């Protein structure tokens, strides 16, 4: 597989940078849509960029209880998510770095980031941090099986855990509305909501200890660290959306490298992702946050639907 030209690698890096750079934009867009649907004006869609830049410039306050783990966590988060971005095809049908790692590696990288986030939550000796880590632990424990079962379905269906393979064979297959994949889609959607802390699971925009899961772990952050945390969270969300559209809506990728193809691919990608984002934002305004122990039921639904997907695939 490693017969790539420099151009390929360049495009691969371009894809990664695209994800990293566009991710705050998606966040801003979703905020805007929410605001609109709640009859608010809301901040502009570029607000997240301003926030990041601002935060990067501000001084940082660090809890005196905390250790180097606390300070390292934002960097680890950013590095893991950003490197995960390298394995995702965006407008090409493949990513030249597909050889280096597959979807399991991506999951592993996310898990590494989450591991450090949870530790950071515990590190500050505040009860909020512990609360956040504890809840994060629960959600991650439950999401894991659902995620792997979905990967199991997809891998068996598209013959690989190598994302490039998946995308290309998804791109080739004409019919996508087979029950197995449909159930996988449902499962993956729920997982996506959970991983990105969307409403029925979590509500990042409030700071109520009743509601927050992910927020609580990064409550103590400020300045650079906060910026990195926010940004890496945005990248993670972006990657998940991209994976979703890559796997379940794989239309008209650029088969071979040509300026038109690539530009068309980029356009199409942005359209797909933004529609998905607005859809999710719309859902967020319609449903209420669920009680913490109801969340497990939701994820159980994801697991079961992915299992059904497996059964449909095999029988």
């Amino acid at each position, binding site marked *: 597989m490693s017969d790539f030209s420099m151009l390929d690698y360049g495009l691969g890096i371009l894809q990664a940078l695209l994800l990293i750079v566009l991710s705050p934009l998606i966040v801003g867009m979703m905020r805007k849509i929410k605001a609109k649907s709640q009859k608010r004006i809301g901040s502009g869609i570029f607000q997240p960029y301003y926030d990041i830049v601002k935060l990067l410039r501000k001084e940082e306050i660090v809890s005196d209880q905390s250790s180097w783990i606390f300070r390292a966590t934002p960097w680890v988060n950013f590095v893991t998510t950003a490197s995960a971005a390298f394995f995702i095809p965006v407008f090409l049908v493949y990513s030249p770095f597909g050889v280096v*790692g597959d979807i399991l590696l991506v999951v592993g990288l996310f898990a590494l980031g989450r591991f450090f986030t949870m530790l950071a939550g515990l590190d500050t000796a505040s*009860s909020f941090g512990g609360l956040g880590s504890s809840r994060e632990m629960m959600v991650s424990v439950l999401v894991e099986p659902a995620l792997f079962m979905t990967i199991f379905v997809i891998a068996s269906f598209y013959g690989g855990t190598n994302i490039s393979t998946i995308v290309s064979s998804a791109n080739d297959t004409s019919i996508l509305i087979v029950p197995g994949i449909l159930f996988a889609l449902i499962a993956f959607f729920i997982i996506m909501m959970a991983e990105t802390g969307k409403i029925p699971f979590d509500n990042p925009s409030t700071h109520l200890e009743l509601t927050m899961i992910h927020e609580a772990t990064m409550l103590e952050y400020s300045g650079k660290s906060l910026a990195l945390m926010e940004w890496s969270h945005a990248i993670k969300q972006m990657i998940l959306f991209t994976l979703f559209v890559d796997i379940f809506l794989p239309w008209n990728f650029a088969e071979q490298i040509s300026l038109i193809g690539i530009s068309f691919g980029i356009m199409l990608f942005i359209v797909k992702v933004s529609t998905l984002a607005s859809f999710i934002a719309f859902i967020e305004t319609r449903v209420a946050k669920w009680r913490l122990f109801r969340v497990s039921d939701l994820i159980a639904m994801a697991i079961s639907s992915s299992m059904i997907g497996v059964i449909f695939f095999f029988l």
Partner: protein
Amino acid sequence: MSENLSILYVIIAFFSLGATLGLFTRGQKYHTYFTYIPSAFASFLTIILSLTIFSSESIHLTFFNIQDLFYFEIFIDGVATFFLLIIGLISFAVSIYSLSYSKKFDDKKNNSALGMLFNVFIISMILVVISNNVFFFLVFWELMSLTSFFLVIYEHENKHNLKSGLTYLVMTHLGTGFIFASFMLMYTQTGSFSFDSFRDVSIIPQYVKDIAFVLAFVGFGTKAGMIPLHTWLPKAHPSAPSNVSALMSAVMLKIAIYGIVRYLFDFNAIDSSPDYVWLGVGIIVIGSISSLVGILYALIENDIKRALAFSSIENIGIIFIGLGLSVVFAAFHLLSLSVLAFIASMFHTLNHSIFKGLLFMTAGSIHYSTHTKNIEDLGGLIKKMPWTAMMFLVGSIAIIGLPPLNGFIGEWLTLQSLLAVFQIPSNILQVSLAFAVLAFALTIGLVGATFVRLFGITFLSKSRSFKATNAVEVPRLMLIGKAILASSCVLLGILPFIGINLIVSAFDLPYTPSSPFETISITNTDGSNFASLLMPGVLVIFISVIVGIFAFVRIIGGKTKTVKYGTWDCGFGSLSERTQYTATSLAEPIRRIFGVFYKPNNHIDVNFYAKENLYLKKSINVISTTRNIFDEKLYGKVISGSLFVLDKIRKIQSGKVNAYILYIMITLIALLLFVGFGTHE
């Protein structure tokens, strides 16, 4: 060949030297050096020996014999070599660690027994692996159990240790009974006690092989701590001194795995008989259950060493899953997949020895400097003992299976072989194995939670008791011992092919060893890439991203200053260590979700300032307990039932001499009738 043999003799000699010196230099100033330097040296030689045998051919020798029945014969082939490597590596690190650790007992107990048993324990494990005859295998196997048992009850003043020691001894003896039975079944077919005769499978009919394997699996599984025969493990490992528990968990369990591997791939030579499908599925099922149950117990455990012991059960489960998959694949002639699964399980075996040894040694260091194993009393240790914390972090990341450490490679391989079940031509199997994937995934998630809890509560935030407050970093030798294993975690993580090549050449699998910088790639039948992994590449990406983001932040953000300030306390004044999350509360949500399994029970009692006023509460105590269903339901029932029967039987010793004479008369008449009927037929 000959020089390898001489190395072997030197190894044995040095271990015995360590044992004798350990016994006779008690109370001396340099006692620990006399004891553990020989063992360290011998272990190092063991590594050398295994590496040389990888390159040269295997050793097969026969020594004296008894009544032409059992020869004392040794056979060091690749299988043995691989496990010799594990033994050597871990015991090398642990011996160095023990140089300082065993000083812990200096004034309290006599170190001499500890040192002696330590050496004998290691050498017995080596001899188990290389002995090639039923009798001597069993002798060394039981010697291994016996020495480890004595090490478990080393602190026998504590009644609790004695109890757990007895449990261990009995359970392991039960296991030996099963192993013995299976060997004997083979012996009835071959008529020889030598393993060589077991190897030529032609004379042994299939069903005998199956029964023998099942018996052996139960026997070795007891030693490996598979559910539901695991009950001794979480009792024994915490009771032992930590250097010993490191050896037991990291190496001794692997000796059990060695036994199973011998049976499966050496005595049995898996062919496509349908039995193997079900054997394999059985192994997978037991593996999944063990991993899940083990980690569920580890998650809520507050004793750090018990938690590690439970996680050993979980890892053994994962190894079993790999083995079972490889059997199933082999039974369906999917050879490459079978090889993949086998590599996965062996890689995980290697990994688990390394990081579990590391973690147990770290737990030992914690106990060494805080004198407690209860994580509720710990906290904030990362500031007191930074290096130990670092080691524990490495161990945790490895055992959770996060990139870029070795644990990730093991679990990646296992997952890949699990994902490949869609190539099995049987729908029922595919669907049922999908559940194994589910269990495995759940296990991975729970492992993450477990080690977040262990590391977070032990090392981060404020100290929860004075024990933790007064902790200091452990002596340098202990750190070196841990560092050896930690660095090998990293090495195997970055360059997995080192491990894979070892396995390939040890079990001479149909697969060519390649350079450490190769890509692990699994290709589909149509040539497209199923999955591939190139850890060095990942590292490169890491570094570039780090450089990039660092540059970006410096350019955009410029230089900013960081201020240390108290944690946000909602304006309630300074936070005390009482306000932070405890280990129990951290696990509470999961405990609730899996309540079916834990049967948790929160006993709450509230004291009021005044009876009549129920609003002003003085204090609220919550005692939250969980129940161990295995000890209660399974073992409790069995033991009480059998004791009932025994009690009835022994009552015949009633003390009445008339009754005794009556017994004789009855026996006589009964036998006479027996024969009378016999003659009339």
